């Protein structure tokens, strides 16, 4: 798939927080085959002091997508994005503007505002948004060439809370890359998102907090691939009654 003119080798993006150790994170990244990993700038970013951890991530060779997790205003997010560009030398930024500290729901107003400022400044913005179509349009108008709607609240592992909303999004933005970001708990959730025709899945807690993060990373990779292939193969329609797959014609009439 292509985003901002760059070809990505996988449809799974991985967050890097909350792993038992960076060594396990490195193994999980390898097992997931992720094309992108996101890194939080906000907390670890004070004075560029997270270098030890970032160097371990760089060692994996995987492309880094810094994020503005933990920012509660457009202004804060813009400042953090600039810091990220300096530290990682990339204009790619996952834009999070959090509206509510408890639910971590995006503040879509601040999001659109920050997306505009950053796009105008040459950033390639990956906005963490809801499945609201109008917000999606505003983000696109602000310069975003990808949208990242939530599946469910961050870290909840509830899967796709509103699959119809995501389906509508796909229909409304047929050409724009759509990445389900947040809420994925199990491989079946990731597969379900891909079966809806979305382009990729971004997840973190589901792998980081699994009993075996490396095993779960591999499971997620397979699920994303399965869901994507399934969608492309044009699944059959669901029916309310059984339809035998062998012909009925010619069966003996026993009554």
């Amino acid at each position, binding site marked *: 798939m292509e985003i901002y003119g760059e070809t990505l080798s996988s449809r799974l993006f991985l967050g890097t927080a909350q792993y038992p*150790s960076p060594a396990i994170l490195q193994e999980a990244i390898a097992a997931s085959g992720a094309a992108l990993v996101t890194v939080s700038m906000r907390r*670890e970013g*004070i004075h560029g002091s*997270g270098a030890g951890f970032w160097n371990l991530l760089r060692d994996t060779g995987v492309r880094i997508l810094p994020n503005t997790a933990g920012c509660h205003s457009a202004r804060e997010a813009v400042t953090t994005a600039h810091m990220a560009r300096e530290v990682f030398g990339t204009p790619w930024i996952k834009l999070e503007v959090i509206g509510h500290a408890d639910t971590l729901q995006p503040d879509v107003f601040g999001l659109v505002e920050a997306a505009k400022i950053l796009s105008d400044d040459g950033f390639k913005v990956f906005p963490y948004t809801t499945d609201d179509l109008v917000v999606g349009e505003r983000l696109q108008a602000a310069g975003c060439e990808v949208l990242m709607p939530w599946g469910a609240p961050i870290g909840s592992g509830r899967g796709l809370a509103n699959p119809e909303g995501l389906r509508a999004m796909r229909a409304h933005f047929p050409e724009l890359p759509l990445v389900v970001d947040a809420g994925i708990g199990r491989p079946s959730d990731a597969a379900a998102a891909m079966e809806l025709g979305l382009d990729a899945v971004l997840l973190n807690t589901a792998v980081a907090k699994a009993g075996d993060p490396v095993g779960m990373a591999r499971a997620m990779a397979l699920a994303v691939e399965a869901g994507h292939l399934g969608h492309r193969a044009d699944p059959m329609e669901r029916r309310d009654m059984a339809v035998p797959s062998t012909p009925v014609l010619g069966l003996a009439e026993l009554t």
Partner: protein
Amino acid sequence: MITIAGAGLAGLACAYALARRGGAVRVFERADTLGAASASRYAGGMLAPWCERESAEDTVVSLGSRAFDWWARITPVHRRGTLVVAPRRDRTEVARFARRTSAYREVSGAEIGALEPALTGRFDRGLFFPEEAHLDPRQALADLATSVTQHGGEIHLATPAPPRVDLDCTGIAAALPDLRAVRGEMAILHCPEVEISRTLRLLHPRTPIYLVPRGGGTYTLGATMIESDHAGPPTLRALMELLGAAYALSPAFAEAEVVETGAGLRPAFANNLPRLDWRDGTLFLNGLYRHGFLLAPAMAEAAADQLMEMRDENPREFRTA
């Protein structure tokens, strides 16, 4: 003479292990007060291998199990267990914690109240790890230094180590290529009206915390885990999370005096496990991460094994300082 750089937890534990085996040890410490520059100053001092297993490898349990007796020879060890609770809305965290750990029993709200009357009615489910213990980190470090001296070891404060030493235990100051810092922020509360007698862990999906009683109504509250080598004072966000969690344990903590806040840097390798490394004739013990008091005994004994063997095989190899 075996020379050691660093009189923090790792350095003193090694000095003790060596001195007890009859090794002549000399420890050099930059700081002019014992423990002033040591990450262990900000530690919880929990001996909690089974709880730690939630996010650590089995090694933590196997190496940590010998810590209880080791420390009991040196400093008071309070073996009162660990009580793990979660707010009602985060109760799935208890189930997750239980799946990843062992050596606990599930406790009801009534049992929680029986164990810690101050928590009566606050939580309806928890886990109790009866074998776990805690000690007072600052007291333990002082007692450890005393034990080193009693066994004939020398500790030189405000004295930089010579350029080459036999054992380097300088924590995050050691220039090891794959060593990183994981910042931890903590607070000390004084709240005589709340009586809690054992270590509590409050589970939360983002900010789990622990509270360790120090006696006399004093409690250590910790700790954040941030991938950062910034050594400055705690942030407002960290303190909000820590103090908010204490309030969630018991609203009576609202009246606590916050007598100290601090931040330390945990030295950690990529797998978050400690390691012994020989480099140019110096043995490095580092990477104790958040398991200093738990794993220092096993690592110090292992370091002493290697150093004593070296000394016996080739006494001239050892430096005189």
